[in-house]
């Protein structure tokens, strides 16, 4: 929340100066309507003089929209929770058309290296397909698979495996390289 003395009050003071009894200065609080938006992001666009808001950043996409969806063991079907996240991703991508995305598919360590590369590719493909169905232009989306090469969690238990069976949507400003 930002409080400051409103400059317009000066004009008012000049007008009132014609009278013998000047009124006290008017103090007003400017309320930022975005300050309490989801995730607590602070709207800075107009104040900063720029045109980009906090929403239009990869960090916002990662932290607030959600860049990761999880899969069941050996499965590539999207869960309802995954669809909810992907619907938000699609909405964000459809709003922020200056960004493109690479969808990275991953698998847990059990399974052969080759099969897991293919499994990760299929998971990335499922995400890509869903985003396209939600209106995201195919030429803004690429996919790749890391198979089991880049786990998010490193333990050899289901708790970690569940976090590693994932597809991560990595967004970047178009032209800034993918």
């Amino acid at each position, binding site marked *: 929340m930002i409080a400051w003395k409103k400059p317009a009050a000066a004009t008012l003071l000049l007008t009132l100066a014609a009278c013998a009894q000047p009124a006290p200065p008017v103090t007003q609080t400017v309320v930022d309507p975005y300050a309490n938006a989801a995730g607590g992001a602070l709207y800075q666009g107009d104040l900063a003089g720029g045109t980009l808001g906090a929403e239009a950043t990869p960090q916002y996409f990662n932290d607030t929209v959600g860049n990761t969806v999880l899969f069941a063991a*050996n499965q*590539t079907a999207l869960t309802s929770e995954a669809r909810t996240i992907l619907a938000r991703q699609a909405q964000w991508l459809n709003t922020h058309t200056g960004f493109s995305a690479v969808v990275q598919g991953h698998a847990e*360590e*059990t*399974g*052969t*290296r*080759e*099969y897991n*590369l*293919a*499994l990760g*590719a*299929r*998971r*990335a*493909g*499922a995400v*890509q*397909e869903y985003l396209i169905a939600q209106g995201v232009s195919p030429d803004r989306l*690429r*996919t*790749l*698979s890391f198979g089991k*090469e*880049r*786990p*998010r*969690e*490193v*333990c*050899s238990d289901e708790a970690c495996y569940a976090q590693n069976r994932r597809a991560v949507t990595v967004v970047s400003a178009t032209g800034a390289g*993918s």
Partner: protein
Amino acid sequence: MLRTLTLAFTMALAASLPALAQDGPLKIEITDGVTEPMAIAIPAFHGDAAVAQQIRDVVAADLTGTGLFREIPRDAQVARPASFGEAIAYEDWRAVSAQALVSAEVTQAGDAISVKFRLYDVYAGQAQGDGMQFDARATDWRRAAHKIADQIYARLTGEQPYFDSRVAFVQETGPKDARIKRIGVMDYDGQNILWMTDSSSLVLAPQFSRDGRRLVYTSFDSGFPQIRVLDIATVSSRALTQDANSMAFSPRFSPDGRWIVYSREQGGNTDIWLMDAASGAQRPLVQSPAIDTAPSFSPDGQRIVFESDRSGNPQLYVVGVNGGEPSRISFGDGRYGSPAWSPKGDLIAFTKQVGDRFHIATMRTDGSAEKTLTESFLDESPTWAPNGRVVMFTRVAPGGNGQPRLHSVDITGRNMRPLSLDFAASDPSWGPLMP
């Protein structure tokens, strides 16, 4: 008679061995039954070369490392001949229960060495096969030792040998969630490591060409998985695929080196494709809505075994090199993967996951006679010794600090042992016997 064989590393000749004497009376029959290791005496080599004893030790390590030979202890050897040419006192060797005896001499002139050896059948009281001489650069003394061990192994087992061969592999360093990988090539016993890639990009699963000159592998060099071919002599590589909208991985050469079979992904679906190694022309071989991956050629180049989950979970299938309907060959419980066709043509080694345990196993090429060789938390990526008798594979230890290590096992399931390396490694590919 003493034959001379020169180790010629630059000759463009296919690997070949002199005719092996196989009519000797002394022979190990390698069967699935319990085999008593053959007692072999390898007394100190004659000659003044500084590397003579190192060569002896490598010969002994090669032979005993198979599990098929037991070395007569040095302190029991009372009868070492005074010189290489001296007559053998067979009764003295029989007294210490030696069945076979190796006598050898190493001479050095400048940076060239010469190794002469003879093999004797102690009980028959005669030489087994011809004496042979290997000439090599002094720096290649290990190869000369492997050549001698190969001769002894072949004469005593009747099998083709495998010691003078190399293995390509992936070295792994760094934490599990940010692993750094690079490709190396080493002697089959972990010595003489040569690095083929730096650690700047993720690389996976190198595979030797049959002539041992090239590797194909998967690289994330472009940011996306693509296949590359690498010339070992010049350590130079180039991309074979660069379609940004299509991943390519798990490549292998055809036996004649003209084709590369690999996995190609389009729109999330992975199929088997063939590429002309010279022109780069590509065509699909197996296409289905299922995952089709991990292809491996038969040694006659006519068939390809691969892994597919078209039945619901991964199983092994065989397809002709000209296409057609693949036939399923694995029907057991569990998930089958990463098949490798034996260079002898008789067996296929593969990874099998049953529950939360992994196995290296073999089956005949029609899927019969499945035989489990190993069991652990995670065993995978089997590769064949050039004689089809030994399988090397990756064994991964569980947990956040779990490391992959290379192991080898005889196809009887015996003699499982880790390769002696002082770093973590995975994805072995066993190259051919060298000329």
